[in-house]
């Protein structure tokens, strides 16, 4: 079984959308209080959940074809974006250690992606109009 490039692209895009979910969950979690009124007013948490749900649509579309052992590691691309949002929105420092971690993640994803053979016939689940088949 081969994993089409379109599946990898869909999962990678889902990871990008999901990184906004992580950022909003973090913002919501720091304000978390276990009272009904407080939970109902925690729009950051709600937005975080929404972004995760939205990202999962692309993830599942990607998973329709291909192998989980190739596609799941691509979710880690979300960390690249999460670190960027951590720097921008939470003022966390972007250190050499974090950059080294990012580099390893990118190299690892590349290795996992290259470690699969590709069947040209199953490439491109996206038709020319951009709609998902």
């Amino acid at each position: 079984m081969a994993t089409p490039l379109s599946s990898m692209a869909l999962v990678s895009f889902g990871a990008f959308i999901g990184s906004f979910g992580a950022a909003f969950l973090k913002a919501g979690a720091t304000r978390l209080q276990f009272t009904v009124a407080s939970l109902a007013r925690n729009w950051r948490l709600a937005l975080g959940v929404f972004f995760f749900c939205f990202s999962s649509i692309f993830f599942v579309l990607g998973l329709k074809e291909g192998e989980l052992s190739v596609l799941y590691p691509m979710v880690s691309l979300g960390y690249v974006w999460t670190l960027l949002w951590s720097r921008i929105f939470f003022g966390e420092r972007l250190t050499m250690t974090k950059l080294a971690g990012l580099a390893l993640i990118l190299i690892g994803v590349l290795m996992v992606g290259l470690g699969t053979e590709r069947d040209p016939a199953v490439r491109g689940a996206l038709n020319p109009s951009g709609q998902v088949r």
Partner: protein
Amino acid sequence: MTDRRRSITLVLACTILGAAAQMLIKSGATALPHVSGFIPNVLAMLSSPLLLAGYSFYGLSTVLLVVALKHGELSMLYPIIALTYVWVAILSVLVFHEHLSPLRVAGVVVIVGGVAILGRDKF
């Protein structure tokens, strides 16, 4: 440091639940009918019991993660979250009989290392 310990235990539980969720989600995704258009695809997903079960597991693990994040820094919990990649790789072979080439195994190890390094950083 009991808060930190509790966060770590919760996140570990998240990784196991999360990996189980991926098995259900992949099974559900593979079984989805081929329909055209974004909305019909989303509707097909919403009517898949396997996907709903998978995302229930995933939702539960997300709630646990939110509770853990209240007391622990996101970056501190990264190394434990990274274990999910290991569970999913092992389960993909056991459940779906996928072939893990040496390059792929190495890739997963490098990713886990990268995620773990993110958490080693002081902030």
